[in-house]
């Protein structure tokens, strides 16, 4: 097991290097640059800007300088559009916010999704099943960009209970709507996967055997069915967790949370090369890390899997 983890971490390094180089090249291939604006800059001003940000160097040198700064100094450089701030500052300010509401939303989505899915499977074709499936489908057709404005209309405008946006770490009032809006459709997907997987497991041979032994249903579900039924859910949760904690454009845009989600899209549109690279690397590292975590959990859940 330890060998497996070491090997995986070892392979992660070239993966991330390839990711950096590819993103870097793709980004520079996109037409326009960070200083393209409605007002074409006089060539002398553009030259000064490019010199300041090192864009006057040949591309391969730019990549090398970038890699050196990232690897040796953990320095992601200055932002091209937010000129008073560095990428490190932007990430260290935005990431904790998305991490907070993303993790809460994740826990909420997993707990409610799995419960709904399990209930629906156990009471298959009953009223409870239809209700659960109904909720799931309802939640699925309400993606966050529809949920967010609906929530704001109800809880901010009509009821006046919650602020329409903003962020305070210690005030749940600001956290509720981002969490619910973000979690809903993930919850629906989790419930759907859980339900179908649970249905399959409940019909498996080993469950029939436990029933034949006369074990109580609750015991069967908790000790024999749930674990194998969660395998497909688990493989869905790895990437989902990463995408939830690295933020959502919609959530950050609607609720003015100051989170990281908005930066990704804005950086791409503004050709803010350094911010885009910073977020890409962060998301890349987290993705690799959590797919490793999922693999380890797999081995723990499924005795057939051994590394």
């Amino acid at each position, binding site marked *: 097991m330890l060998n497996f983890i070491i090997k995986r971490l070892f392979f992660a390094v070239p993966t991330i290097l390839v990711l950096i180089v590819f993103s870097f090249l793709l980004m520079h291939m*996109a*037409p*326009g*640059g960070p*200083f*393209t*604006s*409605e*007002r*074409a*800059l*006089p060539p*002398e*001003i553009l030259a*000064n*800007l490019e*010199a*300041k*940000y090192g864009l006057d160097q040949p591309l391969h040198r730019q990549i090398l300088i970038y890699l050196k700064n990232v690897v040796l100094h953990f320095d992601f450089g*200055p932002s091209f*559009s*937010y*000129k*008073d*701030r560095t990428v490190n500052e*932007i990430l260290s*300010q*935005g990431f904790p916010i998305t991490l907070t509401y993303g993790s809460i939303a994740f826990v909420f989505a997993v707990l409610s999704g799995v419960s709904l899915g399990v209930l629906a499977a156990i009471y298959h074709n009953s009223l409870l099943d239809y209700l659960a499936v109904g909720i799931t489908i309802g939640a699925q057709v309400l993606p966050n960009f529809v949920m*967010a*404005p609906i929530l*704001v*209309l109800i809880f*901010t*405008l009509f009821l*006046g209970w919650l*602020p*329409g*946006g*903003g*962020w305070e770490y210690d005030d749940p009032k600001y956290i509720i709507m981002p969490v619910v809006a973000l979690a809903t459709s993930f919850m629906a997907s989790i419930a759907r996967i859980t339900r179908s997987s649970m249905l399959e497991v409940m019909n498996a041979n080993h469950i029939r055997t436990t029933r034949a032994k006369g074990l109580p249903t609750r015991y069967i579900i908790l000790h024999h069915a749930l674990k194998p039924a969660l395998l497909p859910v688990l493989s869905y949760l790895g990437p989902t967790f990463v995408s939830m904690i690295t933020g959502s454009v919609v959530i*950050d*845009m*609607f609720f*003015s*949370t*100051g*989170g990281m989600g*908005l*930066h990704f899209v804005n950086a791409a*549109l*503004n*050709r803010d090369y350094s911010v885009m690279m910073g977020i890409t690397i962060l998301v890349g590292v987290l993705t690799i890390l959590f797919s490793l975590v999922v693999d380890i959990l797999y081995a723990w859940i499924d005795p057939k899997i051994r590394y």
Partner: protein
Amino acid sequence: MNSKLLLPIALGASLMFSISVEAKMMNGEKLAKEQVFTYRLLDDIKSFDPQINTAVQGAELMRDLFEGLMNEDIKGKLIPGAATGFTLSDDKLTYTFTLRDAKWSNGEAVTAKDFVYAWRRLVDPKTASEYAWYMELMGVKNASKVVKGEVTPDQLGVRAVDDKTFEVTIDNALPYFASMTVHGSTFPVLQSVVEKHGTDWTKPGNMVGNGAYVLTDYRPGEKVVRERNPLYWDNENTIVDKTVALIINDDNQALTRYLAGEVDKTEIPAGQYPRLLKQYPKQAYSYPRSCSYIYWFNIGEKGPKSLKDVRVRKALSYAINREIITDRILQGGQYQSFNFAHQKTAGFQLPKIDYAGWTQKERDAKAVALLAEAGYGPDNPLSLTLNYNTSETHKKIAIGVSQFWKKTLGVKLTLANNEWKIHTTKQQNGDYEVSRYAWCGDYNEASTYLDLLTSYSGHNVSGYSSKEYDRLMVESKTMKNPNANYAKAEALLAEAMPFAPIYQYTGVIMLKTNLRGWPVDNLMQNWYSRALYLVEE
């Protein structure tokens, strides 16, 4: 001054003030006890550094935190700012500004040296400001040479005669020079603070300004808070204690939060003005705003052959039904446009453009005739591509125009939608046939528009080049009343039609009924928190 010190001082001052405010009246109305103004800001602030900031939206922050030589009043008229006034030499090339006794927010005196430092900083290649061109536009002596690195920044035509006298030398007479000092990029900054903190000097706590407010809190992507600066020279007459900008990207979400009472001012989403005006007649406003929306025709090297024929360009322009665009699509009181400069620009007399006076029917008939003359018709239909950048409104207008052109002229128009950077790059490289564009004035004078079409302008992407036009614009710089030249220039544009004018902007906003002092009559929309106040409802 560090942030720990600053906050109690600012709070203390506002507390003291709110006591004195209780009985205070303003123009016969009782002032509200709590003087906090909250407004919606579309995008996050790119920079708080006056010489680095390029965004027009958010420029009000610069005007609150810093103060330039001159300010604007509620009508947009030029009034003294950090300077009490200026004198102009007989050759009209040397401006001498006299500075008033004022202090920076750390207690140091504001001197002419601070202006010298800031102005040199703007053009210094080391600063690499995107707005360095503004000083070139002002024509300050040696500005271009400094930017190019040919001479050192200390060769720039600015000088501190003494602590209270700031002298500027310009290359050519420029009647509106003083009004250009209202722009944020000319605001002073304190050298010692900038050098001590580097790029971090704009962080709350580090920043030292000479404006009526100090930056007390900045949460990226969420909000910017500024509070009264007790050391500001006119603090006594400043009423609003605190101004909060909430960053809300989405127009509709901003409106919802306005209706929920979270912000006092927001922009109205496209198409919703008539409804909101009906529902909230005292809160919905539409007023002129200095921007002009056009479709460029590429008559340059890379442009299509068809557009090189002026008859084709005229036909296309005539056939656009501007009334439908302003009254049915935009619905925010926008002006139909037949010229370039915004018709409400100060001192600008809208010239008589013949096709502006025709009915749409007459324009269509003329358009059909012109296009036929140029050799296009049912057997030989004109095919063109129209580029626009991603936006619901641009799309609606583009679809509208494609219908006008198709129905009236049989033009086969392909609509090409690109994201912003690609759209702009194509436009600037001349890789387009017809392309959407909008220009917003830098200052309240028609040349901010008309200079664009000179053959030597870096913004003229149409390929239009006229010696007569260039001559008119150069001459206008030294004229006492340049309007006659502007009218002639506009007439030349209507005759050559390097672009089709479409509409001129209005600002459409919601304003809380207890807010006073909003400069609805200022075309540039340069507002200052210290000119606002809230009354008891």
